[in-house]
C-alpha cells in the first residue's frame, strides 16, 4: 500500500529524534543551569581564576607604577638621572606609563578570554 510507505514527513521526525539523542545537553551545562553543587563549583572556579588573573595584573601595575613615588623618595640620585636629556620621572610618568598600562590591559584581555574558552570547553564537552 502506498500509504504504508515511509513518508518524507515521518523520516524528518525520526531524524530529529536521532539528532537529539546523539547531541544531548552536556551534563555540565545542565548542572550550571540547574544550580547543582557541581555547577556551583564550576562557576566558583571560573570566578576564582578570573579574579586571580585580575589581581595578578593589578599587582604588576601596583608595583610598576605605584612603586614609583616610593622609589623617587628612596633613590633621589637615580631620580635626578637624565636619560635622553630628560629627567627620569618625566620619561617614566610622562611617556613610559601609557604603553605599560596598555600592555597590561592587552595581556589581561588575552588571558581572560582564554579562561573563558577553557570554561566553555569544559561546559560544552560531550559525555563519552
Amino acid at each position: 500500500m502506498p500509504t504504508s510507505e515511509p513518508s518524507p514527513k515521518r523520516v524528518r521526525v525520526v531524524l530529529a529524534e536521532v539528532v537529539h539523542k546523539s547531541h544531548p545537553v552536556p551534563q555540565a551545562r545542565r548542572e550550571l543551569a540547574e544550580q547543582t553543587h557541581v555547577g556551583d563549583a564550576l562557576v566558583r572556579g571560573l570566578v576564582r581564576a578570573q579574579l586571580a588573573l585580575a589581581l595578578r595584573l593589578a599587582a604588576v601595575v601596583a608595583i610598576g607604577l605605584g612603586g614609583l613615588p616610593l622609589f623617587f623618595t628612596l633613590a633621589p640620585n637615580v631620580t635626578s638621572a637624565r636619560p635622553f636629556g630628560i629627567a627620569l620621572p618625566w620619561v617614566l610618568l610622562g611617556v613610559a606609563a601609557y604603553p605599560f598600562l596598555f600592555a597590561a590591559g592587552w595581556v589581561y584581555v588575552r588571558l581572560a578570554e582564554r579562561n573563558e574558552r577553557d570554561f566553555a570547553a569544559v561546559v560544552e564537552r560531550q559525555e563519552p
Partner: protein
Amino acid sequence: MSGLAVPAIVAVTIATFAIGAYGLKLARTTSDFLVAARAVSPTWNAAAISGEYLSAASFLGVAGLILKDGADGLWYPVGFAAGYLALLLFVAAPLRRSGAFTLPDFCEARLRSRGLRRLATVFVVLIGWLYMLPQLQGAGLTLRTVAGGPYQLGAVLVGVVVTANVALGGMRSITFVQAFQYWLKLTALLVPVLFLLMAWQDDGRPPIASPAGQTFVQATTVTFDDPVQVSTTRPEDVQITLGAIDGQHGLVRLEPGDHHVARSSAVVFPAGAEVPELAPVPTGQGLDWLLPLHRGDRGLFATYSLILATFLGTMGLPHVLVRFYTNPDGVAARRTTLVVLGLVGLFYLLPAFYGALARVYAPQLTMTGHTDATVLVLPDAALGSTAGRWLGALVAAGAFAAFLSTTSGLLTSVAGVLSTDVIGRDGHSTVRGFRVAAIVAGAVPLLLSLHISGLDVSEVVGLAFAVAASSFCPLLVLGIWWRGLTDAGAAAGVIVGGGAGIVAVLVTVLGAPLTGWTEILINQPAAWTVPLAFLVMVVVSKATPSRVPIGVGATMLRLHAPDSLRL
C-alpha cells in the same frame, strides 16, 4: 586675544548641535533615545567613551597642574588613564553581562534592594554634579581668556547648549558627537604641540628649568586679578601700568624680597627679568620643578591618595558606566575598554608638553594663579603672529569640545537616573520624563558654577574621583567578585566611605582654612576613605549573612559565564 577663537568655538558648538540633530532623526523609539539601541560599533564606541571622558580637567587642567606642580602633576594624567585599566580588570565584562544600564540598576540586579538603589541614585547625581561643575567653570574661563567675555557667559553657553541637545537628542546622537569630539580634542592638542616644539627649537631651546629660576623670554605684561604676595631674589625694574606693588605705581625697582601686588594690577616685566615666585608657597623654582615629591612626606601621602582616587574612581563615574551598555556583550566590553585605554593614553602624552613649555613662554601663569589657562595662552605667547592666533583658536575649539562632550555624557546619565528613579514610577521612564530630568540635571550645576570660580579645574575633578572611588568602586568590585556582599553592607560602606568623601569635598570647596596634615587628609581624602569604605562593606556584610540575596549563585553565573555559552 584674537578674532579667530570665537568663530572656532561657535563652529564646534554648531557642529555638536548639527550632529545631535542628525542623530535625532535616527532616534525613533524610547530605547534609541536612551541607550543608542546598543547598535554602536566597538571602534565608534571606544572613541565615544574617550571623547566623553577627556574633560576640562584633561584638556586644560592637567597642563596647568604640570606647570604648577612639575613632575607631581604628571600623576593626574597617568591616574586618569590607569582608571581604565582598573575598570578593565575588575568591572568591564561582568558589568556588561549584568545588563545594568546605570549604577542603581546594578545595585538592584545584584543585591535586590530598592533602598540601596535609591542611595546609589543620590550618589550618581552628586558625583555627576560635582564633575559637571568644573566643565562649566572651564567654559567660563576659556571664553574669558580667548575673547575677554564675562566668566558667566561661557558657563551659560555650554550649560544651555548641552541641556538642549541632551533633552532633544538623547544617546543616539551623543555617540556620534562624542566620537567626533575625541578626534577633535586630540588634533587640537597635537597640532599646536608640533608648532610649539619647532618654535622652542628655533629659539635655541631655552631651559625649561634652570638653577637660577625662570626668566621672561620677552617683555611681558602680567595681569593680576587677585591680590598676591610674590617674592624675588634679584633687583628688577618693572613698569606698573595699573594697580600697585607695595603701594607704588609707574616705573619701580623691585628689590629682592617679598612684595604685595594689589588687586587688578598690570605689570610689565622686561625681557630677561626673573619670574617672581608666589609667596609663601614656593611653586618649585629652579631644578626642583623637574623632580617629584619636593614637598616631603605629605607630598608622598598626597601622591598615593591621588593615585588611589584616580585609579579606582574612573569605574564609579556615572557617565563612564552608562556607555558600557552600548557594547553587545562582555567580550566586546573588554575589547572596547582596551581601545579606550590606548586612545586616552595617546591623548595624555600631550599635556606635559604644554606644562613644560609654559615654563618658558608663559611663566607668569604660576604667579597669577591662572594655570588652568596654560593650554589656551601658550600658542599665542610662544608663536605670536598669525600661526599663534590660528592655533590658539584650534585649542579653544578643542577645549569647548571637551566641555560639551563631558557635560553631555554626565547630563545624560544624571538625567537617566533622575527620570527612572525620581520622576518615573517603578523604574520606568518616558521620553518626556527624561527631558524634564535633563533640564533639572543641567540647571543645578549651572547655577552652582555661576557662584564658584576660584577652584582649579583638575582639583575639583580629583575630588569627584575621590568620592566615586570611595563609594561605587567598593560596591562594584565586591559586588562582582564576592558572594558575601549584602545590601546592608553595601549601603553602610557607601554611606561611610562616600559620605566621608563628600564631607572632605565640601570642606575643600568652601575653602575652610586648614594646615599641615589636616589639609592633606581633607584635600586628598582617597587614601583613607577608600580603605574605610571597603572595610565597612566587608565587616557589615559579614555581620548580616542572612541578607545575602537568594540566587546569588545564578547572579554570579550571569556575571562571569562566557557570552558564547548563552546560558
